Every structure is written in C-alpha cells, then in structure tokens.
C-alpha cells in the first residue's frame, strides 16, 4: 500500500473519524444545550465530509465516487437542519442560553440552565 492515494485517502478518513470523536467529547464536556448542539452538529458534518472525501479518493473516479457525492449532499442538507430543529425545540421548551463565564467549582449548582425537567418525562 505504498500508493499515495491510499495514504491521502486513509489519512482523511482517520482525520474525519478523529473530528467526530472530538465532537463526542464536546457533547459531554460542554455546559449547556446550545453549545452541545453546536459541537455535535459541526463536527458531525465536518467529520462526515472528511471521511467521504477520503473514501472518494480511495475509490478512484468510479460510480462509487458519484454515490459518495450524493451521500455528502444529503449529509450537508440534513445535519444542519437537524441541529436547527434541536435548537428550536430546546428554545421552545424554555432553555435559555447560558451567558457569561462558566466556572467549574465543587458544590456550585447550575443556575440558568433551563427549567427543571421532570426526569424521563416529555416537556409539557
């Protein structure tokens, strides 16, 4: 596998995977719904794009590349729309975005993070 296309394509696929993994880390670590949506959707779209470009390079210039291009168009269309829908839903449910510095201190409660949700219930 000393071919240049294999290295470039494989490298892009790995980079896309790492980007998506970083998005997962962001979802866990970010403090608030809106920042989490931002992390998840950005890295999801970007990671998918890198992976698809890498796979397109690996498969050469064949019908598969065209199919991958369609998949890319679909991902670019739907992932940001889904993020928009999520953010809308969060806003309609009453979550206010958390403005200001966020400091992690022991014992500090998370005010301003939205109304207390009934655990397991659907927002009224």
């Amino acid at each position, binding site marked *: 596998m000393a071919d240049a296309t294999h290295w470039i394509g494989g490298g892009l696929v790995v980079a896309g995977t790492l980007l998506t993994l970083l998005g997962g880390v962001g979802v866990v670590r970010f403090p608030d719904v809106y920042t989490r949506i931002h992390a998840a959707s950005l890295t999801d779209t970007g990671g998918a794009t890198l992976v698809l470009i890498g796979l397109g390079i690996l498969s050469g210039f064949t019908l598969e590349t065209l199919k991958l291009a369609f998949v890319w168009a679909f991902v670019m*269309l*739907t992932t*940001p*729309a889904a993020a*928009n829908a999520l953010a*809308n839903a969060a806003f309609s449910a009453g979550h206010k975005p958390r403005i200001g510095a966020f400091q992690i201190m022991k014992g500090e409660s998370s005010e301003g993070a939205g109304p207390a949700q009934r*655990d*397991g*219930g*659907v927002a009224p």
Partner: protein
Amino acid sequence: MNAIALEASFALNVALLLMLVAIAAAIAWTRSLVAAILLMGVYSLASAVWLVVMDAADVAFTEAVVGAGVSTVVLLGATLLVRPGPVRVDWRRAIAPAVLVVGVGALLVLAVSGLASFGDPSSPANAHVGRSYLVETPNDIGIPNVVTAVLASYRGFDTLGETVVVFAAGIGVALMLGFGPRSSLPQPPVQPGEHHVVLRVTARLLIPLIILFAFYVLFHGDLGAGGGFQAGVILAVAPILHALVFGLHATTAAIPAGFVRGVAALGVLVFAGVGVVCMANGGGFLDYDRLFMPRVEAMIPPGLLGDPTYSHNWGQHFGILLVEVGVLLTVSSTMVTIFCGFAGRATHDVGSAR
C-alpha cells in the same frame, strides 16, 4: 485460533459487539424513558454497522431504516401520548428477574458451546442448504442478489406470510388508535411560524428525493442490496416527514387515510394474486416459472435486460418484481397507518410546526 480470528474484521466485530453490550446496559440502567428510546435508536444504528461487517448488506439496510427510523418515531409517538414520569426502580422487584436471567444465560452458554465456531464454512448451517442457494440461484432465477432470490422466490410463501402479518399489525393499530386526525380536533392555524422555516424548506427538498430513492431501492433489489421491505419503509418516511413538519391535517388532506388502508390491502392482493395466476397457468402457488403462458413468454423481447443473448427465467424476473411491489405497497402504507394512528390520537395536534 481458527482462520476468522486472524482477520482484521474480527477485531471490528468484537469492538462493535462490545459497543452494543454497553448501549444495552445503558438502556437497562437509565431511568429516563426518552433516553432509553434514543439509546434504542443508537443501538439499532450500531447493529446496522455490525451487520455490514458481517456481510449482511440487505439486513443492515433494513435495520438502519426500520430500527433507527420508524421504530424510534413510533416509540416517541407512544411516549408523547402516554406522558409518563420517570421509570421507577424497585430493587426488590428486580431480584427474581436477575436470578432468572443469570440462570437462563448459563443454560444458553451451555447450549451455545455446541455450535460451530464463528465463521466456519463447513458448519451444518453454511455447508448444505445455504450453499445450495448460492449454487442454484444463477440457473434457477438468474438475479445477482441471492438474498432477494431466496426471499421472493425460493421462500416466497414465508414472505407472503410476513406481509400479511405486517398488514394485520397495521389494521390492529388502526382499530385501537383510530385512522388519523380526530374530527373533533380544531384545525391548526394556517400560518406556520417563522421558527421552522429551515425545517419546512429542507422537508420540501427531501420528500420527493426520499420517494425517488425508495423506488430506486425497490427496482435495484435484484442487483444489489435492497428490495420491497427496505423500499417500503423508506417510502413511508416521506409522508411521516411531511406530517412531522406540516401537521397531520395537511398530510391527511394530501393522502387520505382510507386510500392508505386500501393500498395496504392492495399490496397483499398483488402478492397473493401472483401466486394464484401461477396456479391458474398450471404451476404451484407462487411458482414463477409458470407466471406467463408459454406463448406470452415467447413474445418477451430477449434484449429486455440489455443482453440480447439472455432469454430465460422471465417468469422469475417478473414474478419477483411484482411480489416486491406488493410488499412495498403493504409495508409503506402500514407504516403510514401506524404513524397516523399514534399522531392522530393526541389531544392537540402536536405534529404541526408552529
């Protein structure tokens, strides 16, 4: 260590299975019902990836659409109607099931030790009937996708039964939950708010593409992964998306609930009808070789599939296509009926994007 353990895909297989076990443990542990439902969607998608690693392309397709798509929508719809509180955890109640589960698990491990090792090509499952399908399909049926050949032709009677089961489930849900929006519901205001303009534009772009893709999957079921079941569920996603974004009233105005139920019945009729036609022409039920009368079959132009030298198994080709169309009609309309049943039961029209 047998041959399969040395394959790179075995590590992938182990990693994916461990991921599935972790997700299942999270589903069992969580106390939030919505979280359990979404984890179930993640579980379905992860098992779809695992199925691709296991060379089960058709099954992965079906699992991704059905498990991560329709199943999540139906579960969320039910949760919306029921509006439960948090799942209560009663530790005393959990002791007996835990003991039972450990006991049954131990018995199953004992039973499983008699199975052939993973990936063994000479195991009884893989060496006899399975292999004969791979060998005989090019002669008997002539389509590349062996799974579709077995599903629609060799085991067509099973598939007819499954289609009728799906149809019966749709009728059951319709009888219990109603056929669509309740007539007593007020019509939602005709002006949708500005909030959802992105969703509306995206939905308008996507719905025709989804329908086109569903038909692509249907017709290419012979050549690659695909077929009637996958295409039916994908086709059902289009009206469901429309109802989620524009409201159930708008969707029911466009596609009346009675029409959808009629299409479901038509699908079963087409499938069984193909079988009856084969019987009328002298063969057995669903014996596609007798689908056409011999003088009709002689009139089929040999170059129909692009290869002028190919002129046999026409009955199989057309029979499989008709049967898959029947499955598409029934599965898609049943999924739409199920969704309309759940969505229409709400006391206010929760589907519209206000």
